[in-house]
Protein backbone atom coordinates (compact mmCIF):
# COMPACT_ATOMS: atom_id res chain seq x y z
CA UNK A 1 0.00 0.00 0.00
CA UNK A 2 1.29 3.42 -0.88
CA UNK A 3 1.63 6.03 1.85
CA UNK A 4 3.43 9.30 2.20
CA UNK A 5 7.21 9.04 2.05
CA UNK A 6 7.48 10.45 5.57
CA UNK A 7 5.17 7.78 6.99
CA UNK A 8 6.98 5.03 5.12
CA UNK A 9 10.42 6.15 6.30
CA UNK A 10 9.09 6.33 9.86
CA UNK A 11 7.63 2.84 9.63
CA UNK A 12 10.83 1.54 8.10
CA UNK A 13 12.85 2.89 11.01
CA UNK A 14 10.45 1.48 13.59
CA UNK A 15 11.70 -1.96 12.54
CA UNK A 16 15.32 -0.90 13.01
CA UNK A 17 16.06 -1.40 16.67
CA UNK A 18 18.64 -2.88 18.97
CA UNK A 19 17.80 -6.31 20.29
CA UNK A 20 17.56 -6.97 24.03
CA UNK A 21 21.03 -8.59 24.26
CA UNK A 22 22.57 -5.74 22.24
CA UNK A 23 21.02 -3.15 24.58
CA UNK A 24 22.25 -5.07 27.60
CA UNK A 25 25.77 -5.27 26.15
CA UNK A 26 25.88 -1.53 25.46
CA UNK A 27 24.46 -0.65 28.88
CA UNK A 28 27.02 -2.85 30.52
CA UNK A 29 29.79 -1.12 28.58
CA UNK A 30 28.48 2.33 29.57
CA UNK A 31 27.97 1.42 33.23
CA UNK A 32 31.44 -0.03 33.60
CA UNK A 33 33.07 3.08 32.17
CA UNK A 34 30.89 5.64 33.97
CA UNK A 35 31.41 3.94 37.33
CA UNK A 36 35.14 4.24 36.86
CA UNK A 37 34.78 7.86 35.80
CA UNK A 38 32.56 8.78 38.72
CA UNK A 39 35.03 7.13 41.08
CA UNK A 40 37.86 9.17 39.61
CA UNK A 41 35.93 12.44 39.71
CA UNK A 42 34.50 11.67 43.11
CA UNK A 43 37.90 11.23 44.67
CA UNK A 44 39.16 14.44 43.07
CA UNK A 45 36.21 16.49 44.31
CA UNK A 46 36.50 15.23 47.85
CA UNK A 47 40.17 16.12 47.98
CA UNK A 48 39.44 19.69 46.95
CA UNK A 49 36.43 20.37 49.13
CA UNK A 50 37.02 18.53 52.38
CA UNK A 51 40.64 17.55 52.17
CA UNK A 52 41.06 18.16 55.91
CA UNK A 53 38.53 15.59 56.93
CA UNK A 54 40.04 12.32 57.89
CA UNK A 55 37.28 10.01 56.75
CA UNK A 56 37.23 11.61 53.30
CA UNK A 57 40.93 11.09 52.98
CA UNK A 58 40.41 7.47 53.88
CA UNK A 59 37.64 7.14 51.30
CA UNK A 60 39.70 8.93 48.64
CA UNK A 61 42.73 6.77 49.31
CA UNK A 62 40.56 3.70 49.16
CA UNK A 63 39.07 4.72 45.83
CA UNK A 64 42.45 5.66 44.41
CA UNK A 65 43.87 2.35 45.45
CA UNK A 66 40.93 0.52 43.93
CA UNK A 67 40.85 2.35 40.63
CA UNK A 68 44.00 1.06 38.91
CA UNK A 69 43.02 -2.49 39.75
CA UNK A 70 39.48 -2.02 38.58
CA UNK A 71 40.42 -0.22 35.36
CA UNK A 72 42.31 -3.11 33.86
CA UNK A 73 40.51 -5.96 35.60
CA UNK A 74 38.44 -7.17 32.69
CA UNK A 75 40.23 -5.38 29.87
CA UNK A 76 41.97 -8.50 28.47
CA UNK A 77 38.60 -10.22 28.29
CA UNK A 78 37.09 -7.24 26.49
CA UNK A 79 40.00 -7.14 24.06
CA UNK A 80 39.57 -10.85 23.38
CA UNK A 81 35.80 -10.47 22.87
CA UNK A 82 36.29 -7.67 20.36
CA UNK A 83 39.06 -9.47 18.49
CA UNK A 84 37.13 -12.72 18.27
CA UNK A 85 33.93 -10.99 17.21
CA UNK A 86 35.73 -9.40 14.27
CA UNK A 87 37.71 -12.55 13.56
CA UNK A 88 34.49 -14.51 13.12
CA UNK A 89 33.02 -11.88 10.81
CA UNK A 90 35.96 -12.16 8.40
CA UNK A 91 35.17 -8.82 6.80
CA UNK A 92 36.77 -8.29 3.38
CA UNK A 93 40.45 -7.33 3.35
CA UNK A 94 41.19 -3.76 2.29
CA UNK A 95 44.70 -4.68 1.21
CA UNK A 96 46.28 -7.95 0.17
CA UNK A 97 49.89 -8.16 1.28
CA UNK A 98 52.35 -10.90 1.97
CA UNK A 99 54.97 -8.90 3.84
CA UNK A 100 54.98 -6.40 6.66
CA UNK A 101 56.56 -3.80 4.36
CA UNK A 102 53.60 -3.97 1.97
CA UNK A 103 51.30 -3.67 4.96
CA UNK A 104 53.15 -0.58 6.20
CA UNK A 105 52.68 1.03 2.83
CA UNK A 106 48.94 0.70 3.11
CA UNK A 107 48.47 1.60 6.79
CA UNK A 108 49.86 5.11 6.39
CA UNK A 109 47.15 6.78 8.45
CA UNK A 110 47.86 4.89 11.64
CA UNK A 111 49.58 6.61 14.54
CA UNK A 112 52.04 3.75 14.72
CA UNK A 113 54.04 1.51 12.40
CA UNK A 114 52.99 -2.14 12.11
CA UNK A 115 55.90 -4.42 12.95
CA UNK A 116 56.82 -8.08 12.83
CA UNK A 117 56.49 -9.90 16.10
CA UNK A 118 58.87 -12.46 17.49
CA UNK A 119 56.01 -14.38 19.13
CA UNK A 120 56.64 -18.09 18.43
CA UNK A 121 52.91 -18.68 17.92
CA UNK A 122 53.20 -16.75 14.65
CA UNK A 123 55.67 -19.25 13.20
CA UNK A 124 54.09 -21.08 10.29
CA UNK A 125 51.56 -18.29 9.72
CA UNK A 126 51.61 -16.38 6.45
CA UNK A 127 50.43 -12.78 6.30
CA UNK A 128 47.79 -12.36 3.60
CA UNK A 129 46.43 -8.85 4.14
CA UNK A 130 44.69 -6.44 6.45
CA UNK A 131 42.15 -3.74 7.08
CA UNK A 132 41.77 -0.69 9.29
CA UNK A 133 39.98 -1.43 12.50
CA UNK A 134 39.86 -0.32 16.13
CA UNK A 135 40.42 -1.98 19.46
CA UNK A 136 38.58 -0.56 22.46
CA UNK A 137 38.14 2.61 20.46
CA UNK A 138 41.83 2.94 19.52
CA UNK A 139 42.67 2.80 15.82
CA UNK A 140 44.29 -0.52 14.98
CA UNK A 141 45.55 -2.65 12.12
CA UNK A 142 43.67 -5.91 11.72
CA UNK A 143 45.94 -8.37 9.91
CA UNK A 144 44.83 -11.71 8.53
CA UNK A 145 47.19 -14.66 8.73
CA UNK A 146 46.95 -17.99 6.97
CA UNK A 147 47.94 -21.07 8.90
CA UNK A 148 47.55 -24.11 6.67
CA UNK A 149 43.91 -24.00 5.62
CA UNK A 150 43.00 -21.96 8.67
CA UNK A 151 42.74 -18.17 9.01
CA UNK A 152 43.81 -16.28 12.10
CA UNK A 153 43.48 -12.62 13.03
CA UNK A 154 46.30 -10.49 14.45
CA UNK A 155 45.56 -7.05 15.86
CA UNK A 156 48.24 -4.43 16.29
CA UNK A 157 47.70 -1.08 17.93
CA UNK A 158 49.70 1.39 19.97
CA UNK A 159 49.98 0.27 23.57
CA UNK A 160 48.28 2.83 25.82
CA UNK A 161 48.54 1.63 29.44
CA UNK A 162 45.82 4.10 30.53
CA UNK A 163 43.38 2.44 28.16
CA UNK A 164 44.48 -1.18 28.15
CA UNK A 165 45.89 -1.54 31.67
CA UNK A 166 49.01 -3.57 32.20
CA UNK A 167 49.65 -6.16 29.50
CA UNK A 168 52.67 -8.54 29.71
CA UNK A 169 55.68 -7.34 27.75
CA UNK A 170 57.63 -9.81 25.67
CA UNK A 171 60.89 -7.87 26.00
CA UNK A 172 60.73 -8.28 29.78
CA UNK A 173 60.51 -12.03 29.39
CA UNK A 174 56.83 -12.07 30.37
CA UNK A 175 54.45 -14.60 28.87
CA UNK A 176 51.46 -13.40 26.87
CA UNK A 177 48.02 -13.43 28.41
CA UNK A 178 45.81 -16.28 27.23
CA UNK A 179 42.12 -15.43 27.23
CA UNK A 180 39.23 -17.35 25.74
CA UNK A 181 36.28 -15.66 24.06
CA UNK A 182 33.45 -17.51 22.35
CA UNK A 183 35.50 -20.68 22.50
CA UNK A 184 38.49 -19.18 20.72
CA UNK A 185 41.89 -18.74 22.33
CA UNK A 186 43.39 -15.27 22.13
CA UNK A 187 46.96 -14.38 23.07
CA UNK A 188 47.57 -10.78 24.12
CA UNK A 189 50.97 -9.21 24.64
CA UNK A 190 53.02 -6.04 24.25
CA UNK A 191 56.09 -5.93 22.06
CA UNK A 192 58.06 -3.02 20.59
CA UNK A 193 55.60 -0.61 22.16
CA UNK A 194 52.63 -2.14 20.39
CA UNK A 195 49.78 -4.21 21.74
CA UNK A 196 49.21 -7.48 19.88
CA UNK A 197 46.19 -9.77 20.03
CA UNK A 198 46.28 -13.03 18.10
CA UNK A 199 43.44 -15.51 17.67
CA UNK A 200 44.33 -19.16 17.74
CA UNK A 201 41.17 -20.74 16.44
CA UNK A 202 41.36 -24.51 16.06
CA UNK A 203 41.79 -25.84 12.55
CA UNK A 204 38.34 -27.05 11.52
CA UNK A 205 39.84 -29.14 8.74
CA UNK A 206 42.20 -31.00 11.00
CA UNK A 207 41.02 -34.46 12.01
CA UNK A 208 41.00 -35.17 15.73
CA UNK A 209 43.51 -37.61 17.04
Amino acid at each position, binding site marked *: *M*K*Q*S*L*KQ*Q*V*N*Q*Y*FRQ*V*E*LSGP*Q*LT*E*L*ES*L*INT*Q*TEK*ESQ*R*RGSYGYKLVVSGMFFVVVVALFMMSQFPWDASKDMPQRIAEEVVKNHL*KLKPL*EVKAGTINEIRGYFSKLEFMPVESSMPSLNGMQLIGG*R*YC*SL*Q*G*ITAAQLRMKQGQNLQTLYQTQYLPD*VFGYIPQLEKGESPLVVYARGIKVKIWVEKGLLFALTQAPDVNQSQE
Partner: protein
Amino acid sequence: MKLDRKNLQKLYRYAYTLTADEDDAYDLLQSAIETSLNKPADRTATSTAYIRTIMKNRYIDEYRHQQSFPQENIDDHAPVSLGESSLENVVIASHDLALLWKTLEPLDREVLFFWAVEGFSMQEIADKLEVSRGTLLSRIHRLRRRLQAEAGVEQRGIA
Protein backbone atom coordinates in the same frame (compact mmCIF):
# COMPACT_ATOMS: atom_id res chain seq x y z
CA MET B 1 22.61 13.48 28.64
CA LYS B 2 22.04 10.01 29.92
CA LEU B 3 22.51 7.24 27.39
CA ASP B 4 19.29 5.43 28.19
CA ARG B 5 17.64 2.81 26.00
CA LYS B 6 15.62 5.39 24.10
CA ASN B 7 18.74 7.35 23.19
CA LEU B 8 20.64 4.19 22.32
CA GLN B 9 17.86 3.22 19.91
CA LYS B 10 17.99 6.69 18.34
CA LEU B 11 21.75 6.48 17.94
CA TYR B 12 21.46 2.99 16.47
CA ARG B 13 18.95 4.24 13.91
CA TYR B 14 21.32 6.99 12.95
CA ALA B 15 24.15 4.47 12.62
CA TYR B 16 21.88 2.37 10.42
CA THR B 17 21.15 5.46 8.35
CA LEU B 18 24.86 5.68 7.59
CA THR B 19 25.66 2.00 7.09
CA ALA B 20 22.35 0.54 5.82
CA ASP B 21 23.45 -2.67 7.52
CA GLU B 22 22.33 -3.74 10.99
CA ASP B 23 25.56 -5.49 12.03
CA ASP B 24 27.73 -2.64 10.81
CA ALA B 25 25.44 -0.13 12.53
CA TYR B 26 25.86 -1.95 15.85
CA ASP B 27 29.64 -2.12 15.46
CA LEU B 28 29.76 1.56 14.59
CA LEU B 29 27.64 2.53 17.59
CA GLN B 30 29.58 0.33 20.01
CA SER B 31 32.94 1.64 18.91
CA ALA B 32 31.71 5.28 19.06
CA ILE B 33 30.44 4.78 22.61
CA GLU B 34 33.76 3.25 23.61
CA THR B 35 35.60 6.19 22.11
CA SER B 36 33.39 8.73 23.84
CA LEU B 37 33.77 7.00 27.19
CA ASN B 38 37.54 6.85 26.85
CA LYS B 39 37.75 10.61 26.50
CA PRO B 40 38.59 12.69 29.58
CA ALA B 41 35.37 13.42 31.39
CA ASP B 42 33.42 16.42 30.27
CA ARG B 43 29.83 17.17 29.59
CA THR B 44 29.98 16.41 25.91
CA ALA B 45 31.56 13.01 26.27
CA THR B 46 28.35 11.04 26.51
CA SER B 47 26.00 13.35 24.63
CA THR B 48 24.14 11.83 21.73
CA ALA B 49 25.30 14.65 19.43
CA TYR B 50 28.92 13.90 20.25
CA ILE B 51 28.48 10.19 19.64
CA ARG B 52 26.72 10.94 16.37
CA THR B 53 29.69 13.02 15.28
CA ILE B 54 32.12 10.23 16.16
CA MET B 55 30.00 7.74 14.20
CA LYS B 56 29.86 9.96 11.15
CA ASN B 57 33.60 10.69 11.20
CA ARG B 58 34.43 7.04 11.69
CA TYR B 59 32.05 6.00 8.95
CA ILE B 60 33.63 8.49 6.55
CA ASP B 61 37.10 7.25 7.55
CA GLU B 62 36.07 3.67 6.86
CA TYR B 63 34.69 4.67 3.50
CA ARG B 64 37.89 6.47 2.62
CA HIS B 65 39.67 3.19 3.00
CA GLN B 66 37.10 1.06 1.23
CA GLN B 67 35.80 3.38 -1.41
CA SER B 68 35.36 7.07 -1.87
CA PHE B 69 32.82 8.68 0.40
CA PRO B 70 30.40 10.34 -1.95
CA GLN B 71 31.62 13.86 -2.47
CA GLU B 72 29.35 15.11 -5.14
CA ASN B 73 29.61 18.45 -6.75
CA ILE B 74 26.28 20.02 -6.37
CA ASP B 75 25.81 23.38 -7.87
CA ASP B 76 24.35 25.68 -5.27
CA HIS B 77 22.81 27.73 -8.02
CA ALA B 78 21.26 24.90 -9.96
CA PRO B 79 17.64 25.63 -10.72
CA VAL B 80 15.45 24.24 -8.00
CA SER B 81 11.80 24.41 -8.72
CA LEU B 82 10.69 22.57 -5.61
CA GLY B 83 10.49 24.00 -2.14
CA GLU B 84 10.65 22.40 1.27
CA SER B 85 7.34 20.68 0.71
CA SER B 86 8.64 18.73 -2.28
CA LEU B 87 9.07 15.55 -0.27
CA GLU B 88 5.85 16.02 1.69
CA ASN B 89 3.77 15.21 -1.38
CA VAL B 90 5.58 12.03 -2.29
CA VAL B 91 3.83 8.70 -1.81
CA ILE B 92 5.60 5.38 -2.07
CA ALA B 93 4.98 1.71 -1.32
CA SER B 94 6.80 0.23 1.69
CA HIS B 95 8.44 -2.55 -0.31
CA ASP B 96 9.74 0.00 -2.83
CA LEU B 97 11.29 2.02 -0.04
CA ALA B 98 12.89 -1.08 1.49
CA LEU B 99 14.36 -2.07 -1.87
CA LEU B 100 15.63 1.38 -2.62
CA TRP B 101 16.97 2.25 0.84
CA LYS B 102 20.30 0.44 0.64
CA THR B 103 21.04 1.84 -2.80
CA LEU B 104 20.62 5.47 -1.72
CA GLU B 105 23.67 7.58 -1.02
CA PRO B 106 24.44 7.84 2.70
CA LEU B 107 23.78 11.58 2.55
CA ASP B 108 20.35 10.99 1.03
CA ARG B 109 19.58 8.50 3.78
CA GLU B 110 20.65 11.09 6.35
CA VAL B 111 18.37 13.68 4.80
CA LEU B 112 15.41 11.30 4.90
CA PHE B 113 16.23 10.24 8.47
CA PHE B 114 16.51 13.79 9.80
CA TRP B 115 13.42 14.88 7.93
CA ALA B 116 11.06 11.95 8.55
CA VAL B 117 12.25 10.44 11.85
CA GLU B 118 13.76 13.40 13.69
CA GLY B 119 11.29 15.90 12.26
CA PHE B 120 13.90 18.54 11.42
CA SER B 121 13.20 21.43 9.07
CA MET B 122 15.22 21.80 5.88
CA GLN B 123 17.27 24.60 7.45
CA GLU B 124 18.03 22.42 10.47
CA ILE B 125 19.06 19.54 8.22
CA ALA B 126 21.27 21.85 6.17
CA ASP B 127 22.93 23.04 9.40
CA LYS B 128 23.42 19.48 10.59
CA LEU B 129 24.95 18.37 7.31
CA GLU B 130 26.94 21.59 7.04
CA VAL B 131 25.67 22.40 3.58
CA SER B 132 23.81 25.43 2.31
CA ARG B 133 20.06 25.33 2.04
CA GLY B 134 20.34 25.62 -1.75
CA THR B 135 22.62 22.60 -1.87
CA LEU B 136 20.22 20.62 0.24
CA LEU B 137 17.24 21.53 -1.94
CA SER B 138 19.19 20.51 -5.04
CA ARG B 139 19.90 17.18 -3.42
CA ILE B 140 16.25 16.72 -2.51
CA HIS B 141 15.23 17.61 -6.02
CA ARG B 142 17.50 14.87 -7.39
CA LEU B 143 16.42 12.43 -4.72
CA ARG B 144 12.82 13.00 -5.65
CA ARG B 145 13.60 12.44 -9.34
CA ARG B 146 15.35 9.22 -8.45
CA LEU B 147 12.44 8.02 -6.35
CA GLN B 148 10.12 8.75 -9.23
CA ALA B 149 12.32 6.90 -11.69
CA GLU B 150 13.15 3.85 -9.62
CA ALA B 151 10.28 3.38 -7.23
CA GLY B 152 7.44 4.83 -9.22
CA VAL B 153 6.47 7.32 -6.55
CA GLU B 154 3.45 9.46 -7.02
CA GLN B 155 2.63 12.99 -6.12
CA ARG B 156 -0.55 13.58 -4.25
CA GLY B 157 -2.80 16.33 -3.14
CA ILE B 158 -1.79 18.86 -5.73
CA ALA B 159 -4.81 20.15 -7.53
